[in-house]
């Protein structure tokens, strides 16, 4: 595509850059000045939050000072608030003086997360973030306390990536919980999380996680740069972030990996990748992403390596099947009859007798109806979901054949393709094959196997030209790196996999030096004589 893009690109509108925090608040008509008279601030806030039922601004006394406690009642935990702030502030003896907010915090709320809001913008920000804000009369800064979160979905098994053996917890919608799930697994002081606020309206918290002594500096710089460039109205899911940070948007292949599984995120972090957590999304992104990542399920590492290697090969071949099977059927049955053995050809022809459509139309009808079924199955309320599958199986499968609209062979082809397309462990990747399948069917319908080959070559050229954060998308295969083949098509036992993938340029390339291959004891057990 990019050949033509040079012809047709319009002049890029000059990037003025992302607006600063000040500009952003200016646009929304919010003043910056924070006054040392609390009443004034209170008035400003009340005006700003007029019509917000859950906005609370309650007078309290702290150490004899007049103060206001401001918060959004729906975003704070009532119990926490009363236990840790209100009771503490009111029960404390008066007369203990403090000079600034930090001192005050040390005296009254020693174990609570805090921030000092030195201007009005920060004050507003803190309130919106669900923090409890304390404005004390006579000070020209306020204290915001991060206290408990409102109720959240409990941690449950991830719904998109189920496994048989391995940890069954999945990310939820809250950022702190998600970070906790990763921290629990990697107790490493060098595991860092950087926080970013993004979105003009949503002000979503985005965390960039990495392990400092593994992740490559330059890569990290690149990721930070891209994250800083994001200027968007609202971030509702990590998918929004993904579209801002990919290297190339016109491609069916996902250039950013997403997962609901904390263990898989840990694995990626340990390889030297970075994870991007977005508040409000159970899907966590990792970058840079490679083609092979989409064929590695985390369960591979929990099952015996021979089995998981085999399963991995099955995955690769089912990717090819999902992509090519229908088009091969079209190509062979309309162009290359000689490729089928005689008996098979006769029986296929016998079944196609009386089918009124050409093979392409036939297969497109079936594929489309399958796509419709699939989409309906996802969107439908669970209760009626059953109906869809029954209708689908009966109408599309049986009845269409009986009515002579499609042939039996074709139903097998479509069904097998559909099943094969579900094998990929990451959903966003199987979408790519769904789309490309139609392209390749058309190509086969016009040019037979030659068309399929052309398509394959173009697809590989495209794949090869892709990069994710500067790392070639097909990395350990092309460019070929013999040392990194231990976890691509097959998986070697974990004790053999000593090096981190070098295409990520990790700071410390070695996982473990020692040879810890298991072996039977030298002496017979049980003192055999």
């Amino acid at each position, binding site marked *: 595509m990019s050949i033509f893009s040079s012809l047709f690109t319009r002049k890029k509108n000059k990037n003025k850059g992302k607006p600063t925090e000040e500009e952003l608040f200016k646009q929304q008509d919010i003043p910056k000045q924070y006054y040392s008279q609390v009443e004034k601030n209170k008035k400003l806030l009340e005006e700003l939050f007029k019509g917000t039922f859950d906005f609370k601004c309650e007078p309290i006394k702290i150490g004899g000072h007049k103060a206001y406690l401001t918060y959004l009642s729906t975003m704070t935990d009532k119990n926490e608030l009363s236990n840790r702030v209100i009771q503490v502030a009111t029960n404390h003896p008066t007369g203990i003086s403090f000079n600034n907010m930090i001192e005050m915090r040390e005296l009254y709320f020693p174990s609570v997360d805090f921030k000092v809001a030195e201007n009005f913008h920060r004050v507003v920000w803190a309130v919106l973030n669900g923090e409890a804000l304390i404005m004390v009369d006579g000070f020209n800064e306020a204290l915001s306390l991060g206290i408990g979160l409102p109720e959240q979905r409990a941690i449950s098994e991830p719904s998109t990536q189920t496994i048989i053996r391995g940890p069954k917890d999945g990310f939820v919608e809250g950022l702190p919980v998600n970070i906790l799930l990763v921290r629990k697994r990697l107790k490493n002081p060098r595991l860092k999380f950087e926080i970013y606020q993004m979105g003009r309206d949503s002000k979503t918290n985005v965390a960039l996680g990495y392990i400092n002594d593994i992740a490559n500096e330059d890569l990290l710089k690149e990721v930070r740069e891209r994250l800083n460039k994001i200027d968007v109205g609202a971030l509702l899911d990590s998918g929004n972030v993904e579209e801002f940070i990919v290297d190339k948007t*016109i491609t069916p292949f996902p250039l950013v990996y997403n997962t609901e599984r904390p263990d898989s995120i840990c694995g990626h972090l340990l390889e030297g990748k970075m994870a991007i957590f977005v508040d409000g999304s159970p899907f966590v992104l990792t970058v840079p992403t490679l083609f092979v990542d989409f064929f590695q399920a985390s369960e591979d590492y929990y099952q015996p390596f021979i089995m998981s290697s085999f399963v991995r090969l099955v995955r690769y071949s089912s990717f090819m099947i999902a992509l090519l099977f229908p088009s091969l059927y079209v190509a062979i049955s*309309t162009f290359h009859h000689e490729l089928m053995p005689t008996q098979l050809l006769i029986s296929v022809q016998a079944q196609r007798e009386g089918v009124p459509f050409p093979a392409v139309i036939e297969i497109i009808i079936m594929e489309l109806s399958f796509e419709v079924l699939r989409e309906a199955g996802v969107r439908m309320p669970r209760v009626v979901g059953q109906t869809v599958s029954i209708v689908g199986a009966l109408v599309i499968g049986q009845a269409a054949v009986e009515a002579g609209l499609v042939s039996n062979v074709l139903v097998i082809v479509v069904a097998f393709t559909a099943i094969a397309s579900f094998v990929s462990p990451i959903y966003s990747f199987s979408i790519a094959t769904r789309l490309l399948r139609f392209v390749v069917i058309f190509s086969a319908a016009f040019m037979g196997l030659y068309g399929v080959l052309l398509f394959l070559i173009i697809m590989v050229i495209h794949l090869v030209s892709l990069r994710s954060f500067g790392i070639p998308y097909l990395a350990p295969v092309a460019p070929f790196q013999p040392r990194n083949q231990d976890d691509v098509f097959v998986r070697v036992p974990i004790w053999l996999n000593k090096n981190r993938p070098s295409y990520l340029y990790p700071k410390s390339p070695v996982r473990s030096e020692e040879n810890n291959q298991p072996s039977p004891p030298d002496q017979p057990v049980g003192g055999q004589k």
Partner: protein
Amino acid sequence: MKLKMALSILGCVIILTGCWDRIELNDVSIVTGLAVDEGENSKYRLTIEVVNASQFSKNQMGGEAAPALTFTLEGNTISELLHKMNIGITRRLIFSHTRVLYISEGIAKEGIIEFIDFLDRSGQFRNDFNIMITKGEKAEAFVKVTYPIQKVPSLKVHKQTQSFNREWGGDPGVRLTDFISALTSKGRNPVSATLVIKGDPKKGEKSENNMKTSVDTLVEMDGMAIFKDDRLIGYLTVDETRNYFWTQKLKTTSMSVPCSDDEKKPEDEKYMAVTVTETHNKLKVDFTNGKPVLKVKINGETRIEATQCLNDLTKIDTYKDFEEKINRYVAKDIQETIKKVQTEFGVDIFGFGDAFNRQHHKEYKKVENNWDEVFAQAEVEVDINLHLRRSGVRGKTFISEIPRE
């Protein structure tokens, strides 16, 4: 925007140009057999046999119909005829699944080069069809004889030759490329298998033929035809064909070897049935006194399947004795066949010339152009070295244990 433009250009290129070679399966007829006869008015009379695929589906529509259809046309070149066939039939023909090419005796005697070239040149025909010379009846009669198990006549013949070739070796196993390379080589002449119809060909056309347990009409293998260049000059019987095949690619066969070499007492003839399981054959041409001597050397393994002889098969001596008998028997057979070809036809169908070329290139160059004459006069030596390895799951035969009165 740019993507749309790019896509639309690509789309235009593809759609404007369309698709040329597309044929839906519903629009083709699979040709499985071709039969060539002499035409009455023009040079050739061509009969094709196409599969009626709807007869092979589980839920047949429109009741019983013949499993295959034939259609006949006359003309001067085969290729034109093939394209003209739609004068009478509905669908386009595809030839990539052609299994058998039947050539009638008459055509074969006049020379078949002229249409073999078409088959060789065309990308559609494969190299996996049999070339068959039809004896007796016209070639077109052969594509009409049905058979209950394999309903398409040509598929039946193809399968038949394959199994016959593997089981016994009465089919020379000639394919198009073999035929052509034998034609072009000076040191070898082509051969091909022959067929006859047993029974009344008219009855064989009807599907009632398939209802009986013993079918009225049957197509049978009948040895092979010998060509001089591209003209048919004679036939060998099925047994001689096997002997011919011994010198070529024979892998397995079985035969009945008489227990005693004494031919004078035919009334108490006793045989042992011997199966050859593995052979390796080599042709050689040596010089003695300036004259080429044709040598056939065959190594292999055999086993005894049944025996009417009384010899004790647990003894080494018996094995040795039998081995010698088998070798002598085979050698005699092959020798006779080669002699027959030398004297009756005088053409080298065995490929001795090619072997000569490989072994003594310079001497061969001198006689290359009249090799067939040299071949006809040459001496033949057959060296058979078949080993008898085992004799089934029993040692002594029970026949020797039966108490005789």
